[in-house]
């Protein structure tokens, strides 16, 4: 690199550029990302080599922070201890310490934001099982947040986002309900799975019965779901389907750490797969997206999935920052 090769003069704005890169990254990661955002972002990226490097740099740092999710328990225990010390000094100090020790020891995530409400969360690619006092279990899939409150009268789980499988010890006097926004599910002796995406709610009943109750605007819809029923609720419609035991087993394949695709358009398979990874697979043209793919894939193995796309569908894969771009 001789002086004559210097293309970009010293501009003296590295702090601004680093900040712009960080602003783009957080927009991508945390907010609704539209096609327009993507176009604007691509233009910014192509504007200067310094922009591209700054984005690669901040993305790489962000990827590394993924390791911090192992600190979750530790941070939560700290938060619990702090919250309790603020509210009840003295005796509670001892209790808080015990809670902190329990949280660290069992790996349970306990975070008291309101009395008796526990927040349990998984990161992207995470998977954990929580057992309630009564023996009911809640199994959280990737990128899921639930808030649990248990009283003598009721057990309430708020599904803020993600997917969870519930195996409920039924009690007629202490109802078990799952709330997702303005919709609510009440257990009538069951195993069921609930998935909440930004624009839809999906419920499948594996065993027993569940009461679905949607309050939308002024009117209210109550539906009784039996084993094998799947209900899909979007803003505009509620649809009910019948599922075979095999289909239900595939829906729940994530519990075994795999995803099962049967003749699924690549674009849909990728959307499923991406739920488990912070590194995202993308296809740029719709013709490639319409190719179908089948098979059983480990949720954690993005490389195996990419290799199948290359070998079976004859696609090319290129890594671009946080993305793997599949194309023909």
């Amino acid at each position, binding site marked *: *690199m*001789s*002086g004559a*090769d*210097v*293309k*970009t003069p*010293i*501009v*003296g*704005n*590295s*702090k601004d*550029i*680093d*900040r712009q*890169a*960080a602003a783009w*990254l*957080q*927009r991508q*990661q*945390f*907010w609704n990302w539209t096609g327009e955002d993507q176009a604007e972002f691509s233009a910014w990226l192509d504007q200067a*080599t*310094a922009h*591209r*490097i*700054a984005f*690669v*740099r*901040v*993305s*790489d*740092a*962000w990827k*590394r*922070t*993924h*390791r*911090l*999710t*192992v*600190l979750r328990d530790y*941070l939560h225990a700290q938060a619990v201890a702090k919250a309790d010390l603020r509210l009840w000094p003295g005796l509670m100090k001892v209790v808080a310490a015990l809670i902190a020790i329990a949280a660290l020891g069992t790996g349970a995530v306990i975070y008291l934001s309101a009395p008796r409400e526990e*927040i349990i*969360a*998984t*990161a*992207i690619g*995470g998977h954990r099982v929580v057992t309630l006092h009564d023996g009911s279990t809640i199994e959280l899939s990737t*990128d*899921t*947040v639930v808030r649990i409150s248990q009283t003598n009268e009721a057990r309430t789980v708020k599904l*803020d986002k993600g997917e969870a499988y519930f195996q409920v010890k039924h009690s007629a006097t202490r109802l078990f309900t799952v709330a997702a926004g303005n919709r609510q599910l009440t257990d009538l002796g069951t195993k069921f799975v609930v998935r909440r995406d930004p624009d839809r709610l999906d419920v499948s009943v594996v065993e027993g019965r569940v009461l679905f109750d949607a309050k939308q605007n002024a009117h209210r819809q109550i539906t009784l779901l039996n084993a094998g029923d799947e209900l899909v609720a979007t803003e505009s419609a509620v649809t009910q389907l019948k599922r075979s035991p095999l289909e239900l087993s595939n829906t729940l394949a994530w519990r075994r750490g795999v995803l099962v695709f049967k003749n699924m358009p690549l674009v849909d398979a990728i959307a499923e797969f991406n739920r488990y990874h912070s590194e995202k697979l993308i296809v740029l043209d719709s013709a490639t997206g319409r190719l179908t793919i089948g098979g059983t894939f480990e949720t954690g193995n993005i490389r195996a999935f990419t290799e199948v796309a290359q070998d079976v569908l004859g696609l090319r894969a*290129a*890594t*671009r*920052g946080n993305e793997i*771009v599949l194309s023909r």
Partner: protein
Amino acid sequence: MGMAEIPETSVEGADARASASMNAPEADAWFAREVLPLEAALMQFLQHNWRNKSDVADLRQDVYVQVYEAALRQIPDKPKQFVFATARNLLVDRVRREQIVPIEAVADLDALDVAMDEPPPDRQVAARDELRHLQAALDRLTPRCREAVVLGRIEGLSGVQIAERMGIGQATVSKHLTDGLAALANMIHGEIPQGRVKP
């Protein structure tokens, strides 16, 4: 000063055996893998050899741009030597071209030559040390900034949910996250972790 003797072609010599060129995504991956781990050492090098400390971040950016653009044409087969040679040439070049910068701006040109024989150690740390480093970085963010990053990265909440949980506006959350990510990038790449550093 003997600056005229500094061979302009030293870097070309270093990558004479390099073969292939890269496309941009490949260059991004190469850069993250080969160059970013050198940042802490590079920052030390620049700080030691440039008087005006406020220039250092901009110098780092210029080194990166030159390294990246050169790598697009030809992959350097000794990335570490290439990065430090580029940094050294850039410093020398700035002294030479900018009349406003006094010669003393470069602390010690002879030291630069010495540094070139043995580039400083890059950031190679054990996983445990890296975790400690990350945690220390997180702890140094301002409290609101850290809270937003923790809710986003560790709790996995969306921006809208972070705003609800923290009881602040979405634009403020966006600002906290931006500040947090920018600060974390500087701490994660640019600083030597407290743990052992492999020589």
